[in-house]
Every structure is written in structure tokens, then in C-alpha cells.
């Protein structure tokens, strides 16, 4: 009566070795018994009833009717009994299954800490044990992952490559519970893979890769008592790749830092050099000019004036060169102070020392103050006036200052009566080291207009070459931020 499929047909778990098969009343036995009960019991009852009727019952139609009733009754009892017994057996068989299902639900909801209590030694008990082991493994890997994440989060590119590599080794050791672990920053191909020897610590290995670049290798040794599964290796390699990214970042950061330091050093060296040049040129010029001035006070002499003016001129040109360098390295930060433009223009004109050139200054912005860096503005004014005198061929120079109320700016125009700017020269006039085609070579540095325009821009203004005027002559204008004088 025992169905052969139940005893023989069940596929054996490949992991189960023969000695693991339980000897007691296993799940299989109980299931067999249940089937036997469910199938055999009603038959037996029914058979017994038929037998009893055959013994007790008489002959005749009354007995036949009686017999039919009794048989029907017996059949009913047998069916009920079978249902009842099957129900009991099914309940007994599914209770542990329900417990396991509930535990699996708990695990999938994240509760890894409540194992299933294992009773007995049957297939269900082993299923429960497997589940418990799965939950414990999950919990352990979760813990490892947590440690790995904490370790990776703590890595900063500022720490430097060596520190990160050393720390990664220690982190791997604690996170995975290894005997030891280290990061070696060489080509992984140079490090041979150790063979696992049963009974000895198991060597672990994961390469540190970022994209196609191999930065090094993470090596470790696992205690022989521990198992190391695919998921563990995956986690180990994940850690290695995250560490690789952190180390690559640190390498790049280090390079940037080194380059920055180098640039700063170069910048400082350049600044020192310029400062030295400036000092070495300006110091003698200071003496020349001051002595000339002093002599001139004692005994006025036109030649002394020229010495003073030319030394002043030279020192301005030195400054112009320095200003260009600073402008180009972005190291020039003009201040914004209030400045009376007309006063500055007058002083700049006096400093040029060209009393023989006619000069007119028309100030239509009385009281208005430009917002500019006085030192830098002086450079601009001096260059513009100097330009007008030289390129105008010492013709009359006129300066006009007028306010633009709406934009809160001052416009200053410097015009000469010379030949003007040749059309060919106009587009390239503001380039560096540019001089007009028809001008003599001793005109100056060729930086004046370039520096002046850049300075104006740095002060929030602008410098233009005005369109050619009908009367000839060149005319340049500057715009500068300005304030009107009303109090309050």
C-alpha cells in the first residue's frame, strides 16, 4: 500500500551526506504514516463493517435494505474519520512549516536576530537550521558591510595615499575578521596568487581597480576555521574597489596640491623678482629726482627740472611694466577711494613738465568725485596726457570732464590737435607693445594705452578711442564710477 514515490522518489539534497539522514521519526516517515492512515483507515473501517454485517445480518429483502443503509452509514463514518485524521496529520505537518514561513518573513523584513527554535531532527528541523544559518550569515555580512562603509566614509583624500592604504588594510582585517590584511600598491600581476591549503589560513585577494587601471591589490588571510563564500568574496572585492577609488582620489589630490604649491612658489618667486627689480631701479631714481629737486631749490636751473622730470618718467615706466605683470597674473586689486578727478588731472599735467604745451581743463562736474584707486588712476592720467603730448606733436591738449547723472559716472575726454590715429592703427591700438606706424621709436614703452585700459576696467570703468573728429586730432575718453556731492 505504501506509494513508492514517497519512499524512493524524493531527490536527496546534494549537500547532505548519508550519515546526516536522521534515524528517528523523520518528516518522511510521518508523511508516509499520514498517507497510510488517510488511505487505509477508512478502507479498514469499511471492510470491518462489511465483515460484521456478513456475520450478523440475515437474509431477505429487509436484510438487504438494512445492509445498504449500514454500508452507506459505514461509508460516511469512514469518510469522516479519514477527513478528521487527515486534518490532524496535516495540522501536525504544517505547523513547523508555518513557523518557518513566519521566520522567513521576519528575515525579509530585516529582523535577523530571532532564530527558529529547532526541535527534532527531521527535514523540517534541518530546513529551520538552514534558515537560521542564512539569517546569521546575512547578519554577519550586514555587519561587515557596515564596517566597510564606515571605513570608506572616513577616508579623505587629504590623508594621503600611504595613510589610506595602511588604514584600508586594518579596516579589512577588522571588518572581515581576518588574521591580517594589507594593501600593496603595485601592479597586481607582480603579486602571485597563493594557493589555498586545507587546514591552513586561507589566502584572500582582491584587486584595486579604477576603470582599467590597476592600482594595487588587497591581500588577507582568513582563519582556517571560517568558511568563505561567494558573497564574502563579493563584499571583499567591493571593499577593494571602493578603496581603489579613495586612493585614486588621494593621488589626484596630492598631484593638485603639489602643483598648487609649485605655482604659489613660482608666483612668490616672480613677485620677489619684480619687487627686487622695482627696488633696484626705483631707489637710484629716488635719489636722482630728490637731489635734482633740492639743487633746483638752492639754485634754479632748467636742466635740473629736466633731470627731475625724466627720472620721474623712467620710474613711471618701471611701474607700468610691473603693473602689466600684475594685471596679467590677476594680482592687482585696486581700491575704491574717492578722488577729485580735475585735481588729479592738473597734478598729472604738472608732473609731465611740459609747460610749453598749451593745456585747457574744463571741469563740468564740479564737486563730483570719482571712485577709484588714486595710485592707479594717476598712472592712467599720466599715460593719457603723455600720449596726447607726444602723439599730438606738442599741439594743444584739452581735457573735458563731465558727469553722467543717470549712470553715476564721470566721463573724461583727452584730445590733442595732432594728426589723429591712422585708420590702420585704430583696431590694434590697445594691444601690448603697440606703437603707431608713423611714430618714432623713442615714444615710450608701448604699454601706456594697454595698461591704462586694463586699469580702468579693473576700477569698474572703461577707456575708449573716440571716433575721428572733423577737426583732426586724437581723442580718448575714460569712464569711471563716480558720486555726486550732495550731502546725505
Amino acid at each position, binding site marked *: 500500500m505504501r506509494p513508492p514515490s514517497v519512499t524512493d522518489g524524493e531527490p536527496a539534497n546534494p549537500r547532505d551526506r548519508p550519515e546526516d539522514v536522521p534515524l528517528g521519526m523523520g518528516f518522511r516517515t510521518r508523511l508516509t504514516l499520514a498517507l497510510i492512515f488517510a488511505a487505509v483507515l477508512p478502507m479498514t473501517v469499511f471492510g470491518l463493517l462489511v465483515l460484521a454485517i456478513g456475520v450478523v445480518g440475515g437474509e431477505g429483502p429487509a436484510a438487504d435494505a438494512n445492509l445498504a443503509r449500514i454500508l452507506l452509514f459505514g461509508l460516511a463514518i469512514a469518510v469522516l474519520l479519514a477527513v478528521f485524521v487527515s486534518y490532524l496529520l496535516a495540522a501536525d505537518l504544517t505547523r513547523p512549516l508555518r513557523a518557518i514561513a513566519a521566520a522567513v518573513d521576519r528575515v525579509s523584513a530585516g529582523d535577523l536576530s530571532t532564530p527558529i527554535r529547532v526541535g527534532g531532527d527531521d527535514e523540517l528541523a534541518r530546513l529551520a537550521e538552514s534558515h537560521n544559518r542564512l539569517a546569521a550569515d546575512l547578519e554577519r555580512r550586514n555587519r561587515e558591510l557596515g564596517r566597510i562603509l564606515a571605513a570608506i566614509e572616513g577616508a579623505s583624500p587629504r590623508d594621503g595615499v600611504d595613510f589610506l592604504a595602511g588604514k584600508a588594510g586594518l579596516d579589512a582585517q577588522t571588518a572581515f575578521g581576518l588574521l591580517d590584511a594589507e594593501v600593496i600598491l603595485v601592479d597586481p600581476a607582480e603579486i602571485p596568487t597563493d594557493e589555498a591549503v586545507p587546514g591552513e589560513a586561507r589566502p584572500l585577494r582582491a584587486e584595486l581597480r579604477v576603470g582599467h587601471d590597476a592600482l594595487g591589490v588587497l591581500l588577507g588571510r582568513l582563519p582556517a576555521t571560517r568558511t568563505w563564500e561567494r558573497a564574502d568574496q563579493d563584499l571583499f572585492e567591493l571593499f577593494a574597489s571602493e578603496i581603489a577609488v579613495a586612493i585614486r582620489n588621494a593621488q589626484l589630490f596630492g598631484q593638485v596640491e603639489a602643483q598648487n604649491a609649485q605655482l604659489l612658489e613660482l608666483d612668490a618667486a616672480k613677485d620677489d623678482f619684480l619687487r*627686487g627689480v622695482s*627696488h633696484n631701479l626705483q631707489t637710484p631714481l629716488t635719489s636722482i629726482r*630728490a637731489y635734482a629737486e633740492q639743487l633746483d631749490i638752492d639754485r634754479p636751473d632748467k636742466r635740473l627740472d629736466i633731470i627731475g622730470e625724466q627720472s620721474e618718467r623712467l620710474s613711471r615706466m618701471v611701474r607700468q611694466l*610691473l603693473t602689466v605683470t600684475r594685471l596679467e597674473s590677476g594680482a592687482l586689486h585696486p581700491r*575704491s577711494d*574717492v578722488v*577729485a578727478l580735475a585735481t588729479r588731472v592738473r597734478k598729472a599735467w604738472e608732473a609731465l613738465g611740459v609747460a610749453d604745451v598749451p593745456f585747457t581743463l574744463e571741469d563740468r562736474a564740479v564737486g563730483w*568725485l570719482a571712485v577709484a584707486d588714486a595710485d592707479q588712476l594717476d598712472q592712467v592720467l599720466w599715460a593719457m596726457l603723455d600720449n596726447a603730448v607726444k602723439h599730438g606733436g606738442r599741439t594743444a591738449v584739452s581735457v573735458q570732464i563731465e558727469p553722467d547723472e543717470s549712470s553715476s559716472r564721470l566721463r573724461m575726454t583727452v584730445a590733442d590737435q595732432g594728426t589723429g590715429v591712422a585708420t590702420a592703427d585704430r583696431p590694434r591700438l590697445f594691444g601690448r607693445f603697440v606703437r603707431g606706424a608713423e611714430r618714432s621709436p623713442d615714444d615710450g614703452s608701448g604699454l601706456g594705452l594697454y595698461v591704462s585700459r586694463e586699469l580702468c576696467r579693473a576700477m569698474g570703468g572703461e577707456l575708449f578711442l573716440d571716433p575721428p573728429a572733423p577737426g583732426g586730432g586724437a581723442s580718448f575718453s575714460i569712464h569711471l564710477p563716480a558720486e555726486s556731492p550732495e550731502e546725505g
Partner: protein
Amino acid sequence: MLSSGGVGGYGVQAPRILIVDDDPNLLVLLADQLRADGFETATARDGVDALRRLQASWPDLLIIDMMMPRMDGLSLAREIKSRADLPIIVLSAIDAGDSKADLLEEVAEDYVTKPYHYPELRARINRVLRRLGDKVPRQSLVLGPDLTLDLHRREASVSGTPVALTPTESRLLYALAANLGQTVTTETLLARGWAETEDADPSYVWVTMRRLRQKVEREPNRPLHLQTVRGVGYRLVPATGGHEAPTAATNAATERD
């Protein structure tokens, strides 16, 4: 610290100036120019020489060259400031565009670029001498929840945001802060801010004060701190009603004493 006798002596006794420069021509020349204007002068060829001279007697002011052998002007100025708060004017070929200009301003009272224009240098010397005992305190002045002045760093903090001040603005604010709550005349402010600017007029003060308001007031048209006293001048007042106000007033009073 230099006693107030140095200031009191100004006018009675000629101020003594120690000039430190490695260029002998300039030493002779500048000493001549200063002596002609009634100053008493001494000279030193470098920083080490200058420090030796300081052991004997302290001048009222030092003029120091920036670039010198053995010890540069910046180190010398720092060394001197660590010993005594002597006023220092740095004379150098460095201009305002140089990266070291700000360092100079931190350690020295003023600086003049080479080649110097003597009348301007003299004006600056006089201003620095008058400013004695008037040094900007190295502490913050809290004027209210929205305004704190850090004048020694030339900075104001407006509603927590740092705002850079120009040297002139910083000087004006200091003159006002030193007389917290009291009116400072436009003339005084003009002398403070533009001592070396010839023909500077009151419009300089007006415009600068207006610009300052744009910088430090939350509502420049309804100033809380920088108030105009029509026809007289300006005054700086702490925010009223705040807890900071009395503290700030006390601070300023203590600084003055």
C-alpha cells in the same frame, strides 16, 4: 609703550625720526630734508643697525625701507612692534598692487612708495605723529546685532557677512568709534582721512560716508549707526534697544581711557 610725552613734546621738542635704508644717498638726502623741516634725525644702514640704535634711545617714529640686506623691512617692523609700539612708515618701491602691500599695512602705520614725493611723505609723517595713542584696538566693536567693526583687519561684519573696508573708510570709522555716540566734525574727519591730499574738501567726507552707509547699513537711506548731524558732521551710534548697545559703549569708553 611710548609715553604720551612723545606727543606732548611735539612742538616743544622736535620729533626724533630714525631712518633705516641701505642706500646711503637716500639716507643723507632724506635726513637733510627732514632736518630742514625741524625734525631731529638719526640713520641706520640696516635692520641690525637699527635695532642696536633702539637699545640706546627710542625715536618718535621710524621710516624703514622695505628691501635691505641682513633683515628686510617687514621683519624689522615686526621685530620693533614686538618690543614697543613705535609708529612706523615703510618707504618702499612696492605699490598698492603688490601682494605684500597688505602685510605692510598690518605691521606699519603707513607706507610711502619710492620714488617719494617729499611733501607727501612729510604730510604722512605729521599725520602718523598726530595719530599717536590713537591706535586701532585689536578687538571687535559690536555696535548691534547687525554691525560689528573689526577695524584692525579693515573689515566690518554686516548681518554676519564680512565687508572689506578701504584704509580711508577704516580711519574714518575709527575716528567715529573713538567718540562713540558723539558728533565728529566733518573737518576732523577730513583731516583724519585725507591728511596728505592737498585741496581735499568736505565732499570727500560726504561721499565716503555715503559709500560707507551702503556698505555697513542695512537700510542706507535710514541709517541706524552712521548718522548725519546736519551742518556739523557725523556720529556713530550703537543700535538702541539691543543688549549689545551698553557693552559696546562701555568697550569704547575703556578703549579711550
